[in-house]
């Protein structure tokens, strides 16, 4: 009997040892909620935070049939944030637990990854539109950080490829609103500037500076302690050929009637060791402007002039300001409430061979949309071009958003309506016409030059609108669409349906019919049996 007991004990021990193997990944007990998608040049990317993987979707059309390639790529430990590069080729992911930033080359077949040590719990990424830098900062909302310097900015310089380490700079204020200025030449020297906005001041981060005292320049917007200015936007005014040593930043503040101009010039004083000199200027810009833009205009005498366009936040007005002289002109808008949205675009003048800048302005509370021709406005002693300054267009319902078609059709736009109003409106800005598309409530629209696509909130249909002729065709879908995408190669339409496992219908744009389309389900569970369990 003793030998039997011994055998049983040995077996029991062996079983216990064997049982200490793998544990299920805790992501299995949480609801499936991948973050995204991020549309990139070669694919659409979702981030599965629980399993620490990217889900890369690459829709294709082969032999007129819809196909979908799904790849799962490992990120580092606890990915918290992802941003595409400006070119759309690379994806940046912050791996919080490892304190690294991963750069994924989504364009390559194998999706290569390189890591940068960032040595900090950053959770925000600001991407340079030129692709030269990445900035990392803190949102201030990190739940488990023990110590956090919310004023610090991590700078990753990509000009020599992906670096091993980053440079850290501390700004005088919290760095939660960083905006890259476009590259420019100031008196022959290349400049790259980033502006951080904070209460009562902005900071200018000079990415090309070599000395510590040049790296961060502080620019207070007021010296009075009673003021509380909250800058909301920064607009860049590049040097012109007439004045190559003069660039400026226009700072918009929501509660002020003025726009602050910070002039940047190379420092010329002998006792000034810094390379940039900052001087300040205030421009009267109407009545609490909430949107501004710098417009380069061709006036009638062929000169190129710069004007600052400011949209009032309190009244239905706009102002046009000559930045050099400070003179301004204010116009009323043909609406009863202040305008919320504006779109600046260029358009061929009908009947003439020149291209003119236009500004489309709309309010969510008004059915009237205004198209402004800034080149027809005289500020000071200009000679403006002839013609009407403001053209009105009346829509059938108030617009919640206007999307410009862009590309081949800069004079077409689509206005979406909301708040229970049905339909959408196609605007022909050149002819000052619009077509009302009734009978549905498109919850999302995607535009590609000549064509717009929309899905419905309540039925399982897809609509295609020809923006030139107004022709509308509707197509069936297997289920109600939840969101709509144009594939990165622009050859197919993707509709995402409700369904926690990830359900997509892919339709080739050439036909949009079930014969060529395919429904892909369980997309977020691709290769689910091959997911890693966790070693105990």
């Amino acid at each position, binding site marked *: 009997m003793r030998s039997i007991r011994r055998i049983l004990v040995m077996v029991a021990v062996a079983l216990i040892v064997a049982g200490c193997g793998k544990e299920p990944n805790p992501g*299995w007990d949480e609801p499936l909620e991948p973050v995204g998608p991020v549309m990139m040049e070669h694919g659409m990317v979702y981030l599965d935070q629980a399993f620490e993987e990217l889900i890369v979707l690459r829709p294709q059309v082969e032999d007129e049939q819809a196909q979908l390639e799904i790849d799962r790529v490992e990120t580092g430990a606890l990915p918290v944030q992802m941003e595409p590069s400006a070119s759309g080729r690379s994806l940046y992911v912050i791996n919080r637990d490892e304190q690294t930033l991963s750069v994924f080359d989504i364009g390559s077949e194998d999706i290569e990854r390189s890591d940068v040590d960032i040595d900090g719990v950053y959770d925000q990424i600001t991407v340079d539109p030129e692709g030269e830098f990445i900035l990392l900062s803190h949102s201030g909302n990190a739940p488990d950080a023990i110590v956090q310097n919310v004023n610090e900015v991590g700078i990753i310089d990509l000009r020599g490829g992906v670096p091993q380490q980053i440079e850290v700079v501390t700004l005088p204020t919290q760095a939660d609103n960083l905006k890259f200025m476009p590259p420019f030449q100031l008196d022959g020297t290349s400049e790259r500037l980033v502006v951080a906005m904070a209460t009562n001041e902005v900071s200018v981060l000079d990415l090309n500076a070599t000395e510590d005292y040049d790296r961060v320049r502080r620019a207070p917007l007021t010296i009075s302690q009673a003021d509380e200015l909250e800058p909301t936007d920064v607009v860049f005014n590049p040097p012109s050929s007439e004045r190559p040593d003069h660039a400026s930043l226009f700072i918009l503040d929501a509660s002020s009637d003025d726009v602050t101009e910070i002039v940047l010039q190379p420092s010329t004083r002998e006792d000034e060791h810094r390379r940039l000199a900052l001087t300040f200027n205030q421009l009267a810009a109407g009545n609490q402007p909430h949107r501004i833009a710098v417009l380069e205009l061709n006036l009638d005498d062929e000169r190129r002039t710069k004007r600052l366009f400011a949209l009032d936040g309190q009244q239905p007005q706009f102002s046009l300001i000559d930045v050099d002289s400070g003179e301004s002109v204010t116009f009323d808008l043909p609406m009863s409430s202040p305008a919320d949205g504006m779109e600046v675009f260029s358009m061929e003048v009908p009947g003439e061979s020149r291209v003119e800048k236009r500004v489309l302005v709309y309010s969510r509370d008004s059915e009237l949309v205004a198209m402004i021709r800034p080149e027809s406005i005289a500020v000071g002693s200009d000679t403006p071009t002839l013609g009407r300054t403001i053209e009105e267009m009346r829509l059938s319902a108030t617009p919640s958003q206007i999307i410009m078609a862009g590309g081949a059709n800069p004079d077409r736009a689509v206005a979406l309506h909301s708040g229970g109003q049905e339909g959408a409106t196609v605007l022909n800005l050149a002819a000052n016409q619009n077509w009302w598309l009734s009978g549905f409530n498109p919850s999302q629209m995607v535009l590609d030059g000549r064509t717009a696509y929309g899905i419905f909130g309540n039925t399982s249909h897809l609509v295609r609108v020809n923006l030139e002729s107004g022709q509308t065709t509707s197509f069936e879908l297997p289920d109600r669409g939840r969101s709509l995408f144009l594939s990165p190669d622009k050859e197919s339409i993707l509709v995402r349906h409700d369904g926690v*496992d990830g359900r997509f219908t892919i339709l080739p744009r050439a036909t949009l019919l079930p014969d060529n389309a395919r429904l892909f389900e369980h997309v977020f569970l691709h290769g689910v049996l091959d997911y890693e369990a966790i070693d105990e």
Partner: protein
Amino acid sequence: MNKANQEMTMMYWSLKAVIGFVAFALVMSASTAFADQAYLEFHGGSFDTADSGYVNMIGDEPASTGPGVVLGFEPAAIDGLRLIALYGSDHFNENRFARELTVEWGRQRVMAGADYRLAVIGDRVKPMARLAFGYAYQSLGLEAESREYRDTNHGLIGTAAGGLEATIFDSSQADTGILSHLSFGVNLLFGYSWQTEASFDSMQSQDAPEEPDDDDPWRRADYDAGSMHLHGMTINFGLMMQYQF
């Protein structure tokens, strides 16, 4: 290929193989001396594997095995040897992703092999070894919001196990009647099984019609769920009955 038909065909042929094996053993015994025994066992137990796919889908809980049936033949010529044919099934159900996904896995095994018992601790309790090899048929179903995808897999499986067999009622305890030919007992086996890779890379929608028709013109793409390597530990507890010729 219609998966259900394929399943039925495999089961049919496997059953035929088992019956053929048993018939062959009986024929062989007819030509030898008396005291051959026929054997019947019902068993249940569990199967535990460390494969990631299994662990993620099910957790560290073993799948339940059973009920299983073993038919055997003990030739008197070789003491302790028993030729067996075995049918077993393993299965589990699980909810994943906060109950958003239901997973259903099942495996049916048809195997042939041999047991060997040695009377070292006396006649009543004997250490036993079992070796068997055969065919395994798996099916995997994933269901989210009443939409189900299913795939099946065919593979080879082998198992090796060791343990104890105990006779509770011996045929020699009764003098006459049917009970003088029957013995009853129990066994407990711990073992390990190996299986060829099971890939479920073309799971198909169970809601779509075979061919797109007017009601449902949409084609569903096959879903690739990956593969599992289901090697793992087995524990089986069995109730045995022997009939002596």
